[in-house]
């Protein structure tokens, strides 16, 4: 029978029952691979539940450093009878199924094209441990030990990690190490170890990975650190998966870094609001009053915050919102990842509104863009929404280290202090004196006689006096459009990559691919796969809305452009069609909206299919370049 082979290139999936302590054992496995210097990306695929439902943990190992999902499973470790039938079915032919063989597998579950490796986990733990709790917890560690033999995970690294994890609770270290050893020894004696899929330190790892001292962190923690470094002092929020850990992490860092040394008091405030309406209201109030404030939310929270986002847009209050996207409304699939808030965020609120959006693709970018969001919000005096997602926010990613330039100064935008107010001849809150659509604001309490104004939604004139005049309204909203144009020069530019050289291209069409956020990594991988097959594809990673003019150019310079994203309706595609006035046929949607992150294989397959059906119909726009 065929055996899947692969050095530092494979997918391992764990099938567990949630609430059994499996997450930390699985994390131990992934972190050990990271510590070995091998590119790894784990993903927790979990239910909205505390105990008893199926949960999975997928670990991608990629020597070339592709951190998106590949698709398919090479080795399944299954300790959950509930999901076993499907788990067995999902293993690639020639792959491996590691399971608890304390009870024999039912005959009908067996497949003859995969390798079954039974480890009597329950039996071993029953024998070894006296309490049910220990049996349950350490069973997870036993299977990590087993995998370390099967896949060649360095045992020393695992022990090191356990010592780190239980620092201060040293009595827990030796039982855990013992459990690891038990799993390791059983498998080492029973099977031919390591398997043809395995880890090898150094070896075939891509040079760009070896050069950098990577860190292993999730996007939500990185965003929280960005809020600390970006000078946020007020965080108001309402708990919602998958954004909750943003403010949790902010609280932890603030406790360490934001206590006034003289008084012991807090140079920050975190308020758990009664709902997302209130959370955003507090942020609006704090920002209006000159503090840097933010909130973090997900889908339903974004809907509730839309009213205030509209007010902040019209009242020109700088607010920062971190939207960690998930699927759908209500309790549907709140623990599954999507990029499906794009349109709701871009046009958040009633009336004519357009919001500034940022699209981070890595934890490093979550950090950088959160800092940038605070500067942008104050420069532009408008809400800035960072569009992360569950996949980026809650999973650990291998990322280049965070960097900080100590010469950085916060850009507070156009704010007049008392001296400034005294020096200007005429001041009106909504007078566009610089012609860039951005006016000068003042903060409450600044000057005894000058600069006070009344903040409202839309009925006002340039001097901030109440007005229902149509002319005043039009002048104001047209200026807001001017400001949105100005924003194009301020927001992060897209990143482009020329196509990988292809010796004998199979098409004369100039192909391009657009993507953003967590769709980026699997897209780059799919593009490489397709280049090998003879299809060179230019890529552009979108990093912000409003779109830079180079996006428009990119689309025009290609015959066929694929828009890769993770939602049903092709929301980014629609936004581009709308905002850049692109004929819809120019953009071919490549989509995944199952709730589990898009895979490189799915992207490549959808593009292949589109090329097969479309190539015949589309005439190259640029025959001279073909």
């Amino acid at each position, binding site marked *: 029978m065929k055996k899947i082979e692969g050095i530092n290139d494979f997918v391992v999936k764990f099938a567990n029952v949630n609430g059994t302590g499996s997450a930390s054992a699985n994390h131990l496995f992934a972190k050990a691979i990271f*510590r070995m210097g091998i590119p790894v990306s784990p993903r927790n695929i979990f239910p909205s539940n505390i105990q008893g439902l199926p949960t999975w943990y997928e670990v991608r190992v990629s020597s070339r450093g592709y951190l998106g999902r590949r698709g398919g499973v090479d080795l399944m470790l299954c300790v959950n009878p509930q999901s076993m039938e499907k788990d067995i079915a999902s293993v690639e032919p020639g792959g491996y199924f590691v399971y608890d063989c304390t009870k024999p597998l039912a005959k009908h579950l067996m497949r003859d094209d995969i390798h079954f490796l039974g480890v009597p986990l329950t039996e071993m733990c029953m024998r070894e441990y006296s309490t049910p709790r220990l049996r349950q917890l350490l069973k997870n560690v036993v299977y990590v030990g087993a995998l370390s033999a099967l896949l060649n995970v360095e045992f020393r690294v695992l022990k090191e990690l356990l010592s780190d994890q239980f620092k201060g609770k040293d009595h827990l270290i030796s039982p855990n190490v013992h459990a690891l050893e038990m799993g390791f020894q059983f498998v080492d004696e029973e099977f031919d170890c390591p398997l043809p899929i395995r880890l090898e330190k150094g070896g075939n790892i891509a040079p760009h990975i070896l050069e950098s001292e990577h*860190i*292993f962190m999730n996007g939500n923690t990185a965003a929280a*650190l960005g809020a*600390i*470094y970006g*000078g946020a*002092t*007020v965080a*108001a929020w309402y708990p919602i998966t998958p954004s909750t850990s943003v403010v949790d992490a902010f609280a932890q860092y603030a406790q360490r*870094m*934001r206590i*006034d040394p003289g*008084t*012991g*008091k*807090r*140079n920050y*405030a*975190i*308020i758990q*609001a*009664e709902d997302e*309406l*209130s959370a*955003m*209201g*507090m942020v*609006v*109030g*704090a920002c*209006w*009053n*000159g*503090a840097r*404030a933010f909130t973090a939310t997900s889908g339903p929270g974004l809907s509730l915050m839309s009213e*205030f986002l509209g*007010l902040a847009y019209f009242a020109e209050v700088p607010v920062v919102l971190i939207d960690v996207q998930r699927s759908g409304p209500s309790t549907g699939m709140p623990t599954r990842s999507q990029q499906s808030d794009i349109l709701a965020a871009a046009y958040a609120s009633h009336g004519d509104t357009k919001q500034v959006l940022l699209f981070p693709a890595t934890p490093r970018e979550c950090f950088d863009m959160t800092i940038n969001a605070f500067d942008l919000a104050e420069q532009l005096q408008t809400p800035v929404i960072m569009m992360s997602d569950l996949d980026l926010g809650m999973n650990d990613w291998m990322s280049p*280290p*965070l*960097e*900080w330039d*100590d010469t*950085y*100064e*916060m850009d507070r935008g156009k704010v007049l202090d008392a001296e400034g107010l005294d020096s200007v001849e005429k001041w009106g809150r909504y007078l566009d004196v610089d012609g860039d659509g951005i006016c000068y604001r003042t*903060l*409450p*309490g600044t*000057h*005894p*006689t000058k600069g*006070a*104004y*009344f*903040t*409202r*939604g839309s009925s006002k004139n340039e001097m901030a*006096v*109440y007005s229902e005049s149509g002319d005043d309204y039009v002048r104001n909203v047209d200026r807001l459009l001017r400001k949105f144009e100005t924003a194009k020069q301020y927001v992060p530019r897209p990143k482009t990559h020329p196509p990988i050289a292809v010796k004998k291209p199979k098409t004369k069409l100039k192909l391009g691919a657009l993507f953003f956020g967590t769709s980026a990594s699997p897209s780059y991988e799919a593009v490489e796969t397709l280049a090998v097959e003879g299809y060179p594809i230019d890529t552009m990673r979108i990093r912000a809305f409003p779109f830079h003019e180079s996006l428009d150019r990119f689309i025009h310079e290609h015959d066929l452009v694929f828009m890769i994203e993770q939602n049903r309706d092709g929301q980014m595609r629609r936004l581009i069609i709308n905002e850049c006035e692109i004929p819809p046929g120019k953009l071919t949607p490549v989509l995944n909206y199952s709730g589990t992150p898009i895979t490189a294989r799915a992207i490549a397959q959808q593009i292949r299919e589109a090329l097969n059906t479309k190539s015949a119909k589309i005439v190259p726009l640029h025959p001279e370049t073909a």
Partner: protein
Amino acid sequence: MSYVQSGFRHPNLPTNRLGFTVADYDGAISTLCAGCGHDSISAAIRNACFLSSLPPHRIAKLSGIGCSSKMPTYFLGRSHGFNSVHGRMPSVATGASLANCQLTYIGVSGDGDTASIGMGQFIHLIRRNVNMTYIVPNNGCYGLTKGQDSATADFGSISKYGDPNPFDGIDLASLAILNGASFVARSFSGDKEQLEPLIRAAMAHKGFAFIDVISPCVTFNNHVGSTKSYAETRDHLDAMPVDFVPMREEIRTHYTEGTTQSVTLHDGSVIHLQKAVSHCETDDRTAALNSIQKSKEEERFLTGLLFLDPNARDLNTNVNLATRPLNELGKNELCPGSRVLNSINEGLR
């Protein structure tokens, strides 16, 4: 428009401790209906700030949406103001007060804004004891949308459409006391002598100060059968077109503290005003609630200071907030720098 404000001011207007005259606390001309009780409340706020010698620019005014939320335009023209979103002023005020703990915050929100759409935020504002004065000009109806019952309209009160209200009215003062407010008062817009000192006390109070001010709507809730109307004797006004806005004087009542006062309204119903004795029982939540309930059963409005806990811990204390305003902190206090970040990186390997 109620009146045309004259630009003329007496050259020898008295000044307060800061050297300001009362005119320095004026706002723009009111565009509320002639005779609207809200204008009296605006005047009371203006006078209270003047009398208390608060620097106008160190006060921030916040409101939601509705007739009463328009009010902050009509007082304290030298203060920043924020006309926010319907029912959501409490959250904006909470954020603002965290950003700068050294300003005085006045919130104005009507009974629709507070007791219906904003009920959630109102309760949580009370619970957090945000350091601000919160005034509800309470007329039992929606003005800007033309006279629908609000949630504070009393059971059986006849709306301008002629239907008796089938629901019990929410008593905001009781609600505030029950949910932990540290300063709760009720007053009447026509009772300047009581309202001004109450507002001054509220602004001096550290923590959340709530004043429920009965402020009848002259246009939509001023007819026979309404429990929150002004008029008693003007039976003829019943036939007036609904959209007609009568020009009238505001009603002002004067009575001695400690006595029960009946205010006879134009439409024949009688509002009984019973003064709470501000020196006793204000520290007892149960007694305060009992007094309110008792007076309600006797068809009276109990006004005055109902409950006060001067030592309650406000939000800033509870979150251990720095005394220096957060909006004044700079890079040195806020950015931990590259060395700290490098050690964080180290911990993530």
